[in-house]
């Protein structure tokens, strides 16, 4: 599964790691300063007003105790007022907190996608879509959840503790001292708990990614699964993954229960001390019990938020594990510069000059040299796995050559901005991918041209008759991955898409393998007729197709050999 993980994750072990989700979130919350302040203010107000309630109740009790009933209506009014203010503040807190967290998620997702689509080809060879998908959905969601809770719960809880401290100090400095003693214990427990949880959460997030991977693979490969009658095997495979997920979640809860529940217990110990010691002092000094009741009520109000701190640790560790996974996309570099630029590209010959290309140890192209001029129709053939696709993938710079140069119109392709290069080269790959959407959208694929041109492209690709035979013609919806079309129909739509761009170079990588010979002849005739200034590079294994080429090159042992132009018995027959 996902590679390159340990490197970027290993670094973050410092104590300040707790702040990591906050630091990570900062760039995505640049313009949220105002909502930030509102939410924090709302958090303080909401708690403060709520904390006042016990004070008021204490007042009421004292008033009743001493028989001063006249102050009761005033206190009642104050209580209602405090609750109303608290309600308004809570609204701002919840809404504002959600606003911030959603803004954060929005920006993060945007950033995620923009990095993702710019990653180099090699990156996608090492990743699986299901895992990438989990990163883009639930990993981001996990960090958002932490952010939300940070605003709506963590900050308020911290304020609550501070405010409680102040109030207690006013009621009795002694009580506040007891609280001050509890705080370091709480922090210690928190740190230990999060340390222990961290590695498990990483496993959980990775397993979650694997779940997505297994599911996605199963859905996409459903026909193979059924064809090989391996449904049961698949069900078992998935069940093993969900079992692992179950186990890891149970593992983390075992750590969390002990530490997290010790936190409220600490608060309870302090509260009991207050009742005991404070009560004793009241008892001998014959002081009013109002203060004691208020202090204990304040503490009782603290236990819930403090146990929530424990849950925050869960969210935080989950979020940190997720951040690691997200950063493998957003901060790992290796993006292509595909931004549009105003440079233009002059037509000219395509020249491969002693190009070498290897994948790791495996040398795919040893030494390739050839030249193609505008208007030329070049055929490339060679055995399965000889490196034909690799060769053409170098032209659009999906991969870079190890040594040697590839130039187009006298310019080294390395010096041409990718957006320019790729917009002037069209490729019909061996494996066609169509998106769900209409046929028109798929032919256009981001272009904006007249209907006439779309139809012309479809005619060249010999697919216009078929499209016209459909009730909704160009507006016909096709399923995901073009699932509702036949193999040959998909290939021809891809050809139309490539032709529409009127490219300097048109690359057909076995683009007619599912097309019948008769239709194939039509397509090649059309290409020859309409694409007179284009360099056409066709990879094919079929003699019938290669016979259209002006020149057929044979790729063998990593080298291109030229032979007699398109002649029977030439390169074609050698393979």
């Amino acid at each position, binding site marked *: 599964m996902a590679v390159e993980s340990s490197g970027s994750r290993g670094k973050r072990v410092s104590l300040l790691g707790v702040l990591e989700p906050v630091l990570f979130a900062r760039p995505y919350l640049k313009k949220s300063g105002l909502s930030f302040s509102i939410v924090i203010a709302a958090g303080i107000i909401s708690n403060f007003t709520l904390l006042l309630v016990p004070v008021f109740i204490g007042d009421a009790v004292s008033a009743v105790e001493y028989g001063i009933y006249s102050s009761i209506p005033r206190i009642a009014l104050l209580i209602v007022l405090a609750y109303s203010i608290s309600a308004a503040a809570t609204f701002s807190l919840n809404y504002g907190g959600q606003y911030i967290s959603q803004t954060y998620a*929005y920006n993060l997702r945007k950033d995620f996608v923009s990095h993702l689509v710019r990653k180099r080809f090699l990156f996608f060879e090492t990743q699986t879509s299901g895992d990438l998908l989990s990163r883009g959905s639930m990993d981001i969601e996990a960090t958002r959840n932490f952010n939300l809770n940070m605003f709506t719960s963590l900050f308020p809880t911290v304020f609550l503790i501070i405010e409680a401290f102040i109030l207690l100090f006013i009621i009795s400095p002694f009580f506040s001292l007891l609280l001050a003693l509890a705080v370091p214990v709480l922090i210690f427990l928190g740190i230990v708990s999060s340390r222990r949880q961290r590695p498990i959460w990483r496993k959980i997030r990775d397993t979650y990614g694997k779940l997505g991977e297994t599911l996605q693979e199963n859905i996409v490969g459903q026909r193979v699964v059924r064809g090989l009658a391996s449904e049961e095997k698949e069900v078992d495979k998935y069940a093993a993954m969900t079992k692992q997920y179950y186990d890891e979640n149970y593992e983390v809860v075992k750590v969390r229960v002990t530490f997290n529940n010790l936190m409220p217990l600490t608060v309870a110990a302090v509260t009991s001390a207050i009742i005991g010691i404070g009560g004793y002092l009241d008892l001998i000094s014959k002081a009013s019990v109002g203060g004691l009741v208020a202090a204990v009520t304040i503490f009782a109000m603290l236990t819930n938020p403090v146990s929530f701190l424990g849950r925050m640790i869960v969210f935080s560790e989950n979020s940190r594990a997720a951040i690691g996974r997200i950063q493998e996309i957003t901060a790992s570099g290796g993006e292509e510069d595909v931004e549009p630029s105003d440079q233009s590209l002059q037509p000219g010959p395509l020249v491969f000059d002693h190009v070498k290309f290897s994948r790791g140890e495996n040398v795919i192209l040893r030494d390739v040299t050839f030249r193609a001029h505008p208007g030329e129709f070049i055929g490339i053939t060679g055995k399965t796995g000889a490196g034909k696709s690799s060769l053409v993938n170098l032209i659009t710079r999906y991969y870079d050559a190890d040594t040697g140069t590839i130039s187009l119109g006298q310019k080294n392709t390395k010096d041409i901005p990718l957006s320019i290069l790729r917009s002037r080269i069209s490729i019909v790959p061996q494996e066609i991918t169509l998106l769900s959407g209409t046929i028109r959208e798929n032919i256009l694929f981001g272009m904006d041209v007249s209907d006439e041109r779309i139809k012309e492209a479809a005619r060249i690709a010999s697919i216009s008759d078929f499209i016209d035979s459909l009730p909704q013609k160009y507006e016909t919806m096709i399923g995901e991955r073009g699932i509702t079309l036949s193999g040959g129909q998909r290939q*021809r739509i891809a050809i139309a898409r490539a032709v529409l761009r009127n490219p300097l170079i048109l690359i057909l990588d076995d683009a007619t393998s599912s097309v019948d010979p008769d239709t194939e002849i039509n397509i090649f005739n059309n290409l020859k007729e309409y694409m007179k200034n284009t360099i056409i590079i066709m990879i094919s294994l079929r003699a019938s197709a290669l016979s259209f080429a002006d020149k057929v090159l044979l790729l063998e042992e990593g080298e291109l050999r030229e032979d007699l132009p398109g002649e029977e018995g030439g390169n074609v027959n050698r393979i």
Partner: protein
Amino acid sequence: MSTGYDAIEDQFLKPEKGRRTILRMVKDILYWRRDSAVFTTSVVITAIAGVLYPLALGLAVNSILSRNVGSLTIYSVLFFLIYFVQFFSNRTMSLSSTKVAQGVIKRMRDRAFYNLQKVPLEFFSKVKAGYLISRIENDSESISDFLTYQLPQVISGVTTIIIAAGIMFYLDTTLALYSLLVMPILGLFTLVIQTKVRANYLRTRRAIAAITGNLAETIAAIRTVKAFNAESQIEDRFKLLNSENFDANMKATRLSSSYSSAIRVIEAVGIVLVIYEGSIALLNGQISLGILVSFIAYVQQFFNPIVQLSQLYNTYQNSMVGASRIYSIIDSSPEKDSGNVDIQKFTTSIVGRGMRVTYDGSVALDRVTVEIDKGECVAIVGRTGAGKTTLTNVILKFKYPDEGDIAIDLKALNTIDTKAYRKLIVPVLQEPFLFNGSIFDNIEYSKKGITKDEVQSFINNYGMSEIFRTLPNGLDSPVGEMGRNLSEGQRQAVSILRAFVRNPDIIIMDEATAQIDSKSEKNIITAMRNYAKNGTLILISHRFSLITLSDRIIVLEKGNIVQEGKLEVLANREGVFKDLYKRSVSAYVHVTGGS
């Protein structure tokens, strides 16, 4: 765009009524009988302990007032003990709630996955992969969140409310009635906004599914996106869904936050009513100060869970919407007509009569009648889109004809046990999909227990060693996701091998050698010739060289069989076949001299 898709999705994944979802959810929770019993018990203990503190506090206050040091000590220790009990009950509660929550979603996911293996294949051409993944993966997380963190609060909340109310009534009935006065308002309020809350959450779940779906498609098409330099268009499309998601969430929050705030105000009214009535009662000497203090504490104890529950109400609705979306996958109707007649061997023939196959009303096969005999090698040819793959889909039991029937050895296909049938017949599909893993893993996937040596001898026998020659790690080479790290021809070769190692009675090859070079293809063909002596072969190909291998050719055109016969016959007859293979036919006729 997304709304149109939602309608299609609703046809296949029927949304369920809210009430039924709850009942099923309860059933799913109770499935984990032991865990949910432990869970409920520990929650109730926690809650009971929780309602006891005010009592201990009130008693402590009374002992201060009565200047009794002994009882003060007892009650403050009691106070701590209550928390101590809670420590253990909370621990057990978290453990068991996690077990229940994870158990419930594990079962949900497993069942949804299981059912995906049973739905008609058509389902996958309509419902998008990313949307399904979002339901099974993401939506179930919302359920686990609810069950792990919120359900304990709900149960303890309800318990607390009941106990607190009981104690309140015990302490003073009139006061208790006063504090309950606001309850009907609250209930009514909740009821009124319920439908809206649900609709809001449905929207948010759909929005995140749309994001996942879009992401899934983008990743699947990433190579094409790059080829056509469409990165920024993709981003724009994503931005739209991203903001829809933002809006949906903010809308849901607006309502749910207002709701929680309104409840606070209602709570304040409740407390004030008690203080008012309480002080009057105290004045009249009906209650003691200690009772009033604990009573006020109970009122707060009573309202706290109500406020909490009101906040949980939103998460609850969210997870119920999530649950209903998974249930709809579990419920989506499995393939019909999967019979249970066993079949061990292919003995005579496959016969299809008057088969008509349509996709969404458009005809792909129009009353086709075919017969394929045991031991035969039949080639199916025709223009692209003629219906060749569709015909094999029918034979493979991937799709059922709307009209007509198809039978193997006189047993109707729809009465035959699919699993047994698929042991007889193995397809090599037009799209060579491989699983992530090594080449060997993929072959072993098809035939359990096969050894590397056996695979290697298959490769040698079928003359495929040339194809894998360029792979430094041979059979152990990783193929990458969907086999993308192999060359296309290598992928096809693996998928052919995967079928051959099963040694099935019937093999269907749908353009399975289209990307394999002619020399290797010839090797494979020759080996297959030997194989075809006792096996049955159905070949779809555009390559003449492959067609020459066949005993009989079936020519399809626009969903009809227009020609049928031996190569010698068709090559010399005017018609679709001759049109398709002009050059090759003339070369062939030239060599064989016609007949």
